[in-house]
């Protein structure tokens, strides 16, 4: 059984948020419409790490005969996160890198990943995170499944494979849905899947020795014109840091009851709470 996972390297959004909130600030490169990543580590997008975990759980269950291949599109930072998933237990990895892919929008990314997957050949299951933790769009998974002509289920909390069928538990704020579909298929995973495994030392050493081929647009047989045309469809114009809200009034007192009474009084004065 062949599983492919798509993983993205992102500037750690937790650090970005921390800098914004704490007032340290995040510097914006206005011209290139990027955040300047000083002091911000590059990490694997958390939902993609869970996609790796989902793949590995299937492999744990089905045993031999399952191969997991990871693909990442982007810069050299991709190598670092590909090594991480290799260390977790993924079998092979490929980096897609090209000037034409720099700051690729969702459309370009989906086309590039589809081309890479066609080049790799047959697959049974593709796993992606539900959304990349930097752009938060949640487009790639579904877009990729449409380009490849396979069915998909998004927001999975559990993925099982039995023969030629995938059984997925889809988790939304409203319901849990058990869905079945024939392979080949694509699933995007959500945080409800649980915790990703931590790579062991043995895995990390083995990962370091693995060769990671780098494919460019030409290797993928991707037309420059296609890339340009897809890039034009949705272009990033501007980014700006969110303004932090005003001052917080801290309610203090001699005892919890006193603080509670004061807080309630303030809320009643504002008519947020009834008297």
């Amino acid at each position, binding site marked *: 059984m062949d599983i492919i996972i798509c993983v993205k390297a992102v500037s750690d959004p937790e650090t970005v948020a921390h800098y914004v*909130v704490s007032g340290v600030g995040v510097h914006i490169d206005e011209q290139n419409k990027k955040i300047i990543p000083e002091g911000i580590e590059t990490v694997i997008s958390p939902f993609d790490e869970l996609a790796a975990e989902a793949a590995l759980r299937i492999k744990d269950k089905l045993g031999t005969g399952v191969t997991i291949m990871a693909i990442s599109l982007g810069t050299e930072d991709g190598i670092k996160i590909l090594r991480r998933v290799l260390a977790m237990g993924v079998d092979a990895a490929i980096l897609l890198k090209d000037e034409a892919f720099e700051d690729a929008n969702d459309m370009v990314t989906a086309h590039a990943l589809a081309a890479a997957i066609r080049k790799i050949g047959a697959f049974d299951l593709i796993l992606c995170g539900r959304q990349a933790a930097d752009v938060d769009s949640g487009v790639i998974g*579904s877009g990729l499944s449409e*380009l490849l002509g396979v069915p998909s289920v998004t927001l999975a909390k559990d993925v099982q494979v039995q023969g030629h069928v995938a059984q997925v538990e889809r988790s939304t704020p409203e319901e849990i849905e058990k*869905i079945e579909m024939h392979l080949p298929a694509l699933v995007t995973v959500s945080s409800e899947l649980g915790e990703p495994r931590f790579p062991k030392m043995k895995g990390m050493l083995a990962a370091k020795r693995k060769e990671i081929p780098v494919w460019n647009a030409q290797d993928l047989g991707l037309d420059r014109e296609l890339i340009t045309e897809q890039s034009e469809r949705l272009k990033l114009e501007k*980014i700006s*840091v969110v303004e*932090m809200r005003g001052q917080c*009034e801290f309610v203090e007192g001699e005892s*919890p009851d006193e*603080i509670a009474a004061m807080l309630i009084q303030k809320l009643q004065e504002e008519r947020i709470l009834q008297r």
Partner: protein
Amino acid sequence: MPNVFILAERRDEGLHPISFELIGAGRQLVQDQGGRIDVALLGHEVGSLAEELLATGVTNVHVVEDPLLADYTTDAYVSTMERLIGLSNPEIVLIGQTSIGRDLAPRLAFRVKGAVAMDCLDLALDTATATLMVTRPIYGGSILATYRFGQETRPQIVTIRSKAFEPAEPLAESGGRITDHPVDLDSSEIRTKTLERRSLVKAGEARLEDADIIVSGGWGLGKKENYQVIEDLARAIGGVPGASRPICDLEWTNSSRHIGLTGKIVAPNLYLAVAISGAMHHVAGCANAKVIVGINIDPKAPIFKYAKYGVVGDFAEMVPALIRELEKSGA
């Protein structure tokens, strides 16, 4: 002169409020430009809801009814929307950023060869070219990004965040037309099979999205048993209990209670964040609250950057104190 196409959504036996927010956004785009607003209503035996949509003054309501559309499936809804869009040829398609929208919109965009921008908070139209600029959050909400669609990109598909736009009210007079479309679907086209559906929303429990007061708990509660204090305070204050994502993932409470970027977007008068640090993706869910109160043992917790009132203290002491004082004040 943009023509706008909207997917209405249903909730229980009626229409999902986001349907009216989308119409509100559509109205803003069309304004006095003279464009059409078409609304699609998909389902089984849902025709009675069409009048409610028409009353907001939209141009057309396209109703497609079939048992195969009773519940959402990717293939049935994408194919049906593809067909309706082919008939209508809109410049712009508006869909809600809901569990359905998140699944449908990206695939639809690739199917009809347009482009899609997800979870948009604001829209601006270049009227000369009928091209959209959208603003949406990135990095969990720390940063706002503005994107422009290509001038030749059609349709421009956008999902809109819950409560980002004011809902359209019914008009005193509305023209418009309801058109019934025969369904053109074979069950063999639907490649996913739903084996089981389990609703997470308890019958009779008030919806977080509609609540005036929410008491929300986070990881600082320490353990599953402690979530009880959130339920107790919610009851005492007349509110609905909510939660941050980590504790839902840990199953300390139902994930229907999850408030955040990947959960529910709420807009209560009062949001009490108890033992919640205030991570961006959580705040994305509660930022619309009129008043946020943070209760946290850590004075540096980010929640205090968003809260109007803050209490630095141990929830284990503060929550019981609040319950006592609420009972005293007869609130």
